């Protein structure tokens, strides 16, 4: 059986999967499991060729962001898990994750939850103490965050390569996933309620994106610089980070460093977090559907959910494991407060495409910022064009 997975824990991914597979093989010695790690980008391209494979190696089980489910059902590459195992249930699954497992408009399960993460703001207590008496209060709003960034810049400006914020984007660029809380906290969404039109071209959306981009524009956060070598909290070259990773092992690696976690500062009236789920789906062409289903169920077991979530510092997708997981560390308690404010990307056919379009748009902005040729007017123009493109997609794929 071949698994296509994403780098859940960066360079440690293969080691983590090796541990998981070893545990699976202990119970199922006759099943061979091969793991291939692909970036989201590569996987995005590859899922479209699953139906008519050109690769010699065909995957059986594939990890995907949960909002791709509708698309994969439409493309005919995902197996109907409800048909494969009529007993398969989502009863114990956390509520925000359920809708993303079904084919929209039906109760047929096509993908099954694996884990999820949740965005939050992490900050170094020792750094913030120098610029704010009550960081929890000052960091409640986006405006407050920018002010703290400015104060930190003044405080640590003499450290070479210092940035108040660490960039948590995988590519070291601007990331739509990091910008999403600014949109949601304004009560805004990608689409109108009936999902017939997009709000990407609206004034509020442009403002939301501008809030996020300000971090790069004012050089509070490095972009297109090497992650890991510049502006990290651990190295002392950054003081804060908005991230979906809990960062427990990373932050505790440095003795004496205390990192606190708060909800993402609200750019609008309310705080909002981005909940990003990862699901499994079985390829319709798989020759090992039974084994793949066994692996899915193995991963959904509370003990495995707990174990893997600790390994990659994400959250278990099922209630039975979620509660004990949250209780396992005092630093995780804050996520109880964050979870009710969580938003997800809708499970729509075009959602993955919309994120691809916006990712390219932000990559273009990042290059413009670095080359000092960014203007808000050009971004607004691009967003208007993007909105038209999304509406065209909506007209073809009806969501």
């Amino acid at each position, binding site marked *: 059986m071949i698994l296509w997975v994403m*780098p859940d824990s960066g*360079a440690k*991914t*293969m080691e983590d999967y090796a541990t998981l597979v070893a545990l699976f093989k202990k119970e199922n010695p006759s099943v061979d499991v091969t793991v291939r*790690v*692909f*970036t*989201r*980008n*590569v996987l*995005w*391209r590859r899922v*479209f*060729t699953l*139906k*008519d494979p*050109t690769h010699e190696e065909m995957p059986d089980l594939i990890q995907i962001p949960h909002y791709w489910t509708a*698309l994969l059902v*439409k*493309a*005919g590459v995902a197996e109907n898990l409800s048909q494969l195992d009529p007993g398969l249930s989502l009863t114990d699954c956390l509520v925000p994750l359920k809708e993303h497992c079904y084919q929209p408009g039906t109760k047929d399960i096509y993908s099954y939850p694996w884990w999820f993460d949740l965005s939050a703001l992490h900050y170094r207590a020792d750094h913030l103490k120098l610029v704010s008496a009550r960081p929890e209060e000052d960091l409640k709003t986006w405006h407050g965050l920018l002010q703290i960034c400015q104060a930190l810049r003044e405080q640590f400006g003499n450290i070479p*390569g210092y940035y108040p914020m660490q960039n948590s984007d*995988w*590519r*070291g*660029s601007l990331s739509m996933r990091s910008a999403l809380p600014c949109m949601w906290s304004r009560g805004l969404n990608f689409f109108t309620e009936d999902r017939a039109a997009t709000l990407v071209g609206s004034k509020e959306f442009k403002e939301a994106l501008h809030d996020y981009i300000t971090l790069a524009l004012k050089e509070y956060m490095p*972009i*297109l*610089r*090497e*992650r890991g*070598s*510049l502006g990290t909290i651990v190295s002392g070259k950054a003081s804060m980070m908005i991230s979906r990773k809990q960062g427990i092992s990373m932050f505790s690696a440095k003795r004496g460093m205390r990192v606190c976690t708060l909800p993402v500062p609200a750019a609008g009236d309310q705080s909002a977090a981005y909940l990003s789920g990862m699901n499994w789906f079985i390829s319709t062409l798989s020759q090992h559907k039974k084994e793949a289903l066994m692996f899915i169920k193995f991963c959904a077991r509370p003990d495995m959910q707990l174990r893997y979530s600790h390994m990659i510092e994400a959250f278990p997708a099922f209630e039975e494991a979620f509660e004990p997981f949250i209780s396992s560390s005092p630093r995780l308690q804050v996520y109880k407060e964050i979870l009710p404010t969580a938003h997800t990307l809708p499970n729509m*056919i*075009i959602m993955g*495409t919309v994120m*691809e*379009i916006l990712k390219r748009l932000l*990559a273009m902005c*990042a*290059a413009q910022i*670095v*080359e000092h040729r960014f203007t808000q007017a050009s971004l607004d123009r691009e967003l208007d064009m993007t909105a038209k*493109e999304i509406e*065209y*997609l909506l007209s*073809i*794929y009806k969501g």
Partner: protein
Amino acid sequence: MFDKKSYTLYKFHKQINQSFQDRRELLECALPALRDMFRLDRVYFFDWQQERAILSLRMMCKKEYCMDMQEDISVANEPAFLRQLLQKGVAETTDLSYPALYVLIRWLRPTVELKSGEVHSFMREKVGVLRLERFRKNRVFTDAEIDLIKDLGAEISHNLHNTEIDQAKNQRLSISTALNDLSTIFASSLRLNDGLELILKGIQRYFHFDRVHLYLTNSEGTRIKSVLGVDISGNVTQESGDSLRDEEKQILKEVFESSATYRAKRSVIYLPLKVQRTKVGFLTFDNILSRRKIGYLDFISLQQFATQMALTIDNARLFERVQELSNYDELTKLPVRRYFNEKFAEEIYRAKRFGLSLSLIIMDIDWFKQINDKHGHQIGDWALKAVSKIIRSSLRQTDVPCRFGGDEMVIMLPRTNSEESKVIARRLQERICDVVLPDRNALEPEHLSISQGISSFPSDGTTANELLEKADQALYVVKQHGRGNFAVYREVAEQVQQTSPEEQKEEK
């Protein structure tokens, strides 16, 4: 005897000088080899986007494995680093706390581009960067090591060049195989529509497009007649040109004015289908949902295929036209007897197989010979045209009328019993009675009338000949009783049996 450097080079050469499917496969072999030779902790491979001064990380090799990576690093603000890397081919990093060496590698890759409508095939220089890291023991790179690494970089360049050429060759081979397969499919399908469906599905499968559409137009290219498509689920869709949105209709002019069009960052292609000046339609391929770029090579190959496709569609249309002409009577525009017989046999088979009803009407124009004699053949032809026009407009789509010969016409009525066929016969009779012959000299208007005989399956017969014979006999009875009426065989069977076949012939 080899010295140590030559031996290392030879060893490395042997390791990576293989036939790789693509660049990724080559790097998965070369990076671990470098890691092991120089006891590196990590090796990275970047694509160098020279015009933007960005290093795009593609692969990382660490410990036992390699992994695809994705990270952009701008070096626009580091001119000293850039200068050193571009001039010397190697540069040591300035902002890492451990030894890391950048090595520039250049190679030529086959490229195909379209410039002002023309295809240009050439070799383009591609630049990559290797980064070798030692962070565990902080061992710096010696001059000898740097020298050797530069040579190994050159070896990788050489292999990247070969791999990319092989990849391009394989790609061309697989495309030509695909197009050959598609041509075979097209050639072997009997019906144009079936062939087109198979072709569109084939193109989608071979080239991995999200959607493929064929728009068929009139020969002037001013109106879309129909659209055949395959969606992302692989389902075939068919639409009439009238139901299209205005934007889609507006595309016509643009498509036919250019030889082919790339759209939306090469996610959409429009290919016009033309045979000399005759416009057949156009093809569209899109990856709008997946956002995957469509390569020039695919585009050019499809362009060549489109020419062949246009010719085939045009030929098929001509063939259909010829068939239409041979199956239809030129004067009345009704099917001819041969075509009718085929359809009749099929319908009888279907009626037997599924226990369905079927009726047949034979009719002729009353006093047709006299009309010809009195008014001339022109008026006779006019009468035939008028009657057949009424027949065509009065029947259902499933009914098959036919000009059997002279003024005799036959109508096959599938799924119709004798009572239902009487309704149709009455309707025809009433409508044809309203027709007045166009004779300026006539003192009184001369109305047309018809006589009709009806037989039904299976009560009156179970073969084509039986049904024709029975309907003909019923027609004879109508004629005996003054014409201008219709009769069902079953209802007049007794009267038929009293008449000899010779009498019937005489009457006709």
